[in-house]
């Protein structure tokens, strides 16, 4: 790699260039190929992040820093560390798949649709790269606009309600964060630099205050119980690509926020509030699983299962030990892969049958065996079957939770049981049983494009499941450092 080549900026703004290119296109097919080209190029360009990443240090890498708004000491500063690097790869991969899965599903306003996907990609990568709080906030909020339009224009029947609800929930959460950001600026010595702000030890009252301000934003995004109610609507009404991006990346941003801001900047408050956070996580796991069991809508069911799965992520994070945090982080990636894949599967079948009611399905196993091959393996991964990626993640989360607190870890295990319940029951209703005559004519096998869309995720499911040490090796040092930093040990070492 050429020294000083601004890889992160290229990754962030290449999709924006793609938007400009799209605007010059006229035919829908050209638009599709251009979008595919740009997302593929983006994915290829993001691979050096893995190969050139130095796993031995917690320091930020690929750093770029320029003055942006000097009068407020705002910088354009980008960088990645072990906590963020994998998410960028996840984003670039899922963006490619979002383009391919929408190939035939989107026939109206094709150009605008792919422009929105690319805009989302810019915002998401920007979020994971930003090392300046102001910059982070800009990307964080900017994400709302394309997502709002994605749900609202290309969504299904109840899309307007879902889109508006999504924006208002997220906005309400993030404005509280804005107050926190400004207060942090004055408290932390008039800077927005995330690294510098993390070095400070703030007074405990301020830490509490800041924790709640950030919590409002991140909890809505994750989403944690009880502010999860936007999620089922948004996921269900969004077009397939929108659901994949929502489940795959957007939900992770909330949890990423906890790791990047809440833990290092309010360590004492986080420790004090550990138990309430763990309880909220377990409530999300159990409650989410029960609500999932009751769903009659295929897509809504998976949407609710995300609430339960993200409960594991936050449980891991708020165990505040090495296993828990590693597990939480890995589980974020896993959930992005597995739930993203299941949403892709749902999108493919919905494209054929135009129904999401579970009752309308049945006998897919006989009608579309290749499709069911993929769906089965992804379902197993969602359950956390040994050999798949979620098994490792959930195992680490639970061992972290047991180390931290038995009382919350034991109920969490029931969450896994319930998870197996709803996935297997769903599998029975959709794949087994008799074929519903009403949709029989529509059940065609998936084609080459769709198989190619699913294969990368399937490979990842087993690769992470069998070689968990590889992804974990990226995050270990950064997490160790984060924990030391919370204990106040690392302060000297950093300077």
């Amino acid at each position, binding site marked *: 790699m050429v020294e000083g080549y601004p890889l992160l900026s290229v990754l962030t703004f290449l999709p924006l260039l793609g938007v400009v290119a799209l605007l010059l296109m006229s035919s829908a097919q050209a638009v599709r190929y251009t979008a595919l080209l740009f997302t593929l190029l983006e994915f290829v360009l993001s691979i050096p992040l893995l190969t050139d990443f130095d796993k031995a240090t917690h320091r930020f890498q690929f750093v770029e820093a320029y003055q942006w*708004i*000097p*009068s*407020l000491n705002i910088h354009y500063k980008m960088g990645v560390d072990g906590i963020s690097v994998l998410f960028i790869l996840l984003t670039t991969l899922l963006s490619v798949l979002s383009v391919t899965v929408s190939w035939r599903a989107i026939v109206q306003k094709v150009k605008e649709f792919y422009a929105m996907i690319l805009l989302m990609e810019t915002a998401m990568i920007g979020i994971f790269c930003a090392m300046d709080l102001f910059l982070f906030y800009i990307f964080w909020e900017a994400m*709302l606009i394309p997502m709002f339009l994605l749900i609202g224009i290309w969504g299904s029947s109840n899309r307007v309600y879902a*889109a508006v609800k999504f924006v208002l929930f997220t*906005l309400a959460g993030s*404005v509280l964060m804005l*107050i926190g950001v400004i207060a942090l600026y004055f408290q932390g010595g008039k800077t927005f630099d995330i690294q510098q702000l993390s070095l400070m030890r703030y007074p405990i009252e301020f830490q509490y205050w800041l924790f709640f301000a950030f919590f409002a934003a991140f909890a809505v995004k994750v989403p944690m119980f009880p502010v999860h109610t936007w999620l089922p609507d948004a996921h269900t009404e969004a077009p397939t690509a929108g659901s994949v991006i929502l489940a795959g990346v957007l939900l992770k941003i909330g949890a990423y926020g906890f790791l990047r801001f809440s833990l290092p900047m309010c360590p004492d408050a986080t420790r004090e509030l550990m138990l309430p956070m763990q309880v909220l996580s377990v409530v999300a796991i159990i409650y989410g699983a029960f609500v999932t069991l009751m769903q009659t809508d295929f897509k809504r069911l998976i949407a609710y299962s995300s609430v339960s799965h993200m409960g594991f992520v936050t449980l891991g994070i708020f165990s505040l030990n090495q296993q828990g945090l590693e597990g939480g982080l890995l589980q974020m990636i896993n959930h992005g892969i597995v739930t993203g894949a299941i949403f892709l599967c749902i999108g493919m079948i919905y494209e054929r049958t135009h129904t999401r009611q579970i009752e309308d399905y049945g006998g897919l196993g006989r009608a579309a065996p290749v499709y069911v091959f993929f769906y089965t393996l992804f379902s197993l991964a969602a359950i956390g079957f040994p050999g798949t990626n979620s098994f490792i993640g959930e195992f680490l989360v639970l061992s972290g939770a047991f180390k931290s607190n038995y009382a919350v870890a034991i109920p969490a295990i029931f969450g896994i049981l319930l998870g197996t319940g709803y996935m297997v029951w769903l599998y029975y209703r959709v794949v087994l049983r008799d074929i519903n005559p009403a949709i029989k004519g529509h059940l065609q096998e998936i084609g080459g494009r769709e198989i190619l869309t699913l294969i990368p995720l399937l490979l990842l499911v087993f690769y992470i499941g069998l070689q968990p040490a590889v992804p974990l090796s990226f995050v270990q040092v950064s997490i160790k450092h984060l924990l030391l930093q919370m204990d106040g040990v690392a302060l000297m070492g950093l300077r």
Partner: protein
Amino acid sequence: MDTSALIPEMTFGALIILYFSIGLFIKGRYLLTAMALGSCMITVSFLITAPYGQVFGGAFVADPLSQSFKFVFHVCLALSLLISLRYGIIKDGQFFEYVLLMMLATLAMMLVASSRDLIPLFLSIELMALCSYLLTGLARDDLRSNEAGLKYYLLGTLASITLLIGISALYLVTGTTDIKAIGEFLRAQSGAPNPYEYLGIIAVLIALSFKAGAVPFHQWSPDVYEGAPTTVTAFMSVGPKAASLSALGAVLYGAFGGDPEVWVNTLIFIAVATMAIGNILALRQDNLKRLLAYSSIAHVGYMMLGLLAPSQEGLSAIVLYMLIYAFMNIGAFAVVLSIQEGEGINAYRGLASTNPFMALCMLILLFSLAGIPPFAGFIAKFRVFMAAIHAGYTVVALLGILFSVLSAYYYLRIVVKMYFDTTELPHSLVPINLNIATATAVLAVCLLGIGPSLLI
């Protein structure tokens, strides 16, 4: 006496006289507009180059802040002129006086921004207000416009009387009308404030809040904004508000800065009430002019948060806000003008299909008004909230931000109509001047959003 600080005002005044004497014989709208825009540009160039300083013993001050306010006024004038070019409600025969009134109002606003003595301040506010009354009632055969003009005039006079009472009371206490001298007197004074001092401060605060359209003195503005010709509404929702806020800022810091406890709670009340009422009443408006009127009330509320900060930081946040707001709001009005029956929210159904360009522009302007980055409206709000938090009014800032979430709802309603509704209404051709005005506004909103350091 060195009068070089007065150069921009004198130039603009001379240009107005020139316009007045030549324009009388000109019928063409294009030529008249070109003359006015030319005057605008010449004045702005003088504004940038003219030295700072004081004239008339400190009664007229040109400092960076007042010059930036004047720049905002000229941006507002230029954009308003641009969108008026083919506006049918203003008849060809009236166009000459319409432009003249706008220019005069702008001159008055420039004087307001620089006045540091209560008498010239009062006089220039009155000149500004008189021009606004006339502009509001300019559509002579439209009953709503007549009603609005009369209403505005009657209530505006009441506010002027209040302002005069305040000034008299302050004169009674301090024996001067010079803002700086009043400030020094009040600072030097020991013991509890004199009741007349209270009366003076509160009366001035109320009168200027009225002119800025702040709650609870806002009742006139929705009616006036709805009744006035749309271009006038666009002009008045920015210029006179900015001028009133600049006057408020000058008075609060220059004269009453010594004992903020007398007025700060009143100001907080006014600011919070303004944000609350403006946003809540805008929620269910189906008339876009009225919606934008209420939203402009709400925006004044945000700007007033900048007045809470005891520093230049707050005032410069207000100027930046006003500049960005000028682009956002007049841009939005340009879109309203470009749509047939554009006042009703249902006229925007399916706009994304019939006129994608205008729909995209409106989308950007509305998201900017809602304060969502990366557009400039976010930077504007960010600076104001930052100033308020810096001054220690975190809870007030929090309320402001929550109301701004509320505002996202009514802005999004329009986006929903434009983008999510698939009704196709007949497409109408948009005049080129409105396209230019909208594009300028959108460009400014984007550029200032990404690179606010161009200005601050």
